[in-house]
């Protein structure tokens, strides 16, 4: 890449960090500042890395969620999708299947779960909320039935080493999710598919007349969400060394919260990759800070609620009305 194009693509990137993202960034800075002042050691490198690592799974899911939300949908089934993908690829590994193959199978499960959601939404025309509410139970049940409710233990160390490694001093999970974020940013900003997502969520009828492949676009969004749920699952089971059928409980709420804090509109047609990542880090920093402050769990819950509201308010104020 020549210097000139580098400068140009940096400028483009900065334009990508829109006003709206600046609002989210201010929210993050405020929260970091508050915890930094209250918690000694909050800004220690080790702790900052911790925050990133603890945010990485939610960020991964939230990226997929952002694409789905932009397309005008919602995916409540990410947690069970992750669980199903996790237990199937884990049990393959335990049965001796080479782990790249098992991971690929896990991804395939994620894609398949997304495909079912997408087809029910795009071709059958059901409401996304209710479709994924239905598959939320269904996929969870499948994971439980498949395992009989037991965790799958004994994942091969080779597999675990992959996901527990680190690169340039950052946990590999963080690096992977950062790469996913870059890809998602490029997809949204630089590819026809990204434009299609924004158009389908922004005005489906107009997109249809303009020749946008509506159904394919929506299905692809759900499949990406499923795939990223499967990726999150692999990261998690790599970390935990076990896959459980009840893994991923309530993940959807955190993912939606991150996307919404980052500026995605649940009405569709609007959302930002940078914002979503910032949103996930806001939530991660908050959990981390509250824990380090030893806040009792009821008050942590209170703080969680209030900080979600505060993040939205800060953003609202810095951005002005409308």
């Amino acid at each position: 890449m020549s210097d000139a194009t580098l400068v140009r693509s940096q400028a483009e990137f900065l334009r990508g960090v829109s006003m709206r993202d600046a609002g989210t960034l201010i929210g993050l800075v405020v929260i970091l500042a508050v915890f930094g002042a209250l918690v000694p050691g909050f800004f220690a490198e080790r702790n900052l890395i911790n925050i990133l690592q603890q945010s990485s799974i939610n960020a991964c899911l939230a990226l997929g969620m952002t694409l789905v939300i932009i397309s005008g949908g919602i995916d409540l089934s990410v947690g069970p999708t992750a669980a199903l993908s996790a237990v199937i690829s884990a049990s393959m590994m335990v049965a001796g299947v080479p782990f790249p193959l098992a991971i690929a199978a896990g991804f395939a499960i994620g894609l398949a779960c997304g495909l079912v959601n997408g087809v029910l939404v795009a071709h059958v025309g059901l409401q996304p909320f209710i479709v994924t509410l239905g598959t939320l139970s269904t996929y969870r049940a499948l994971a439980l039935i498949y395992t009989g409710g037991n965790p799958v233990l004994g994942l091969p160390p080779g597999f675990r080493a992959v996901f527990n490694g680190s690169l340039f001093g950052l946990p590999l999970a963080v690096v992977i999710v950062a790469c996913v974020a870059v890809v998602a940013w490029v997809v949204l900003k630089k590819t026809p598919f990204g434009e299609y997502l924004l158009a389908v969520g922004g005005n489906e009828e107009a997109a249809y007349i303009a020749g946008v492949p509506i159904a394919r676009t929506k299905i692809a969004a759900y499949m990406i969400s499923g795939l990223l749920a499967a990726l999150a699952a692999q990261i998690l089971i790599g970390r935990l060394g076990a896959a459980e059928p009840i893994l991923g409980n309530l993940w959807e709420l955190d993912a939606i919260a991150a996307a919404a804090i980052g500026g995605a509109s649940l009405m569709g047609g609007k959302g930002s990759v940078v914002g979503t990542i910032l949103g996930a880090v806001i939530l991660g920093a908050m959990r981390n800070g509250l824990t380090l402050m030893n806040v009792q769990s009821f008050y942590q819950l209170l703080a969680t609620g209030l900080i979600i509201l505060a993040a939205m308010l800060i953003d609202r104020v810095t951005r002005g009305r409308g």
Partner: protein
Amino acid sequence: MSPRLQFQGISKLFPAVRALDGVSFSVGAGEIHGLLGENGAGKSTLLRILSGVYRPTAGSVLIDGKPVTLVNPVAARAAGVAMIHQELQQVPRLSVAQNMFLGHPLTRGAIFVARREQERRAAEALAAIDPSIDPAAPLGTLKVAQRQIVEIARALLDRARIVAMDEPTSSLTPSEFERLAQVITGLARDGVAVVYVSHKLDEVFGICRRATIMRDGVVVDSVDLNDLSEKAVVAMMVGRELAQEQHNSHATNKVMLSARGLSSATKVRNVSFDLHRGEVLGIAGLVGSGRTELLRLLAGADRATAGTIAIDGKAARFFSPRDAIAAGVGLVPEERKREGIVPLRSITSNMALASMAVFAPRGLIDHARLKQVAAEKMSRVNLRPFLLDRPIRLFSGGNQQKAIIGRWLAAGTRILLFDEPTRGIDVGAKAEIYHLIEELAAEGHAVVVVSSELPEVIRLADRVLVMRDGTIAAELDRANLSEQAIAAHAIPQTQTPAAQPARQ
């Protein structure tokens, strides 16, 4: 005595745009005052200030000499202002009557909505323009023209002192305008001040004695229309003389599209015709005669139940607009807001939506080339303001239309289907679009133009199909083309009510 309505130095700033700059003029009681200007001149913005939707950055509105603060639509209504908005402002799931009384329903015992009473009063108001509209029908089942009539009738209900009409006839036919004109003159006779915005100059000349002409947010002049020719008014609007346009034909014998026995599930019945390279084919007909549906079949937006379409002699089957676009067919739809634009996206994105793949030969969009093409196409259609990255929703309706025409130019579409292409578009831009359509024909495109404005059809078309009740009632070539001839074929021959176009 002070005038009924007076604008004093009204300015309105939007981020990066000065939409109005010191606008002052007045309208007397009983006066029908035209408000003219190109797309984006600021007409709608001014009327939105009058109706309390926007607040002015500076200046004031006076009613009967007293300054009024119009903080919201309720305040404006209380001050005696009724408004017909350019974009239809309706709730599709509520009935016609419910929409007309929305925000101030009639009640029974102060608790229940008096539906029957509302429907009766709504029917009264509708009767003046179109008695066939059922006040109890859900609004969403009405066609655009009927919905526009509902908007007008709603404004009549209010018995306001000032009625502002922002392009009330953009979807109406001349005969419907006639009835509306009677209603408006009736209002004026009762002492109501009417502000009338339209791009159809003949209408403005027909009912207004005075008019204010705006350009780029400022008042050019308030004039007496009796003293001026249409040409002079146009010159004031656009700031230059418009050349008198002549019809030029570029039609060839090469058939590009041929339809045989096309029928749709609802309206279109057994339509057959050929469209030639370089030809501009006009389609005329009454509202509800099935023209829009025919275009949607040709564009792949709806499925035909019978019949065939062939492009360049090869049979084509369209399952979605995507297939039609691939075959080189593109539709400029009738309802711009609903079917045309993606409001939050930029002009560039909206333009490129149909040809994204072309701009992304290797998967990634070549933004440099996209920008260059957008700049080129948008200057060809003369977009104003020329801000390619601005969300399209912030542009005036006319400029939105230009971006959508640009969409098909960018996609290299060979067969262009225009449904009411100049609805809501100013004279200057209209001339540009006519010119554009002719250029496209000359370049070897084939063009279909559906229009309810007969002068437009006559100006543009090499040949006209007249539709009636979903079928082609007549084919007129230029030698036989006249408004009378079209009207004669468009109106059902048998004068029984059953043959009237369906209206529910």
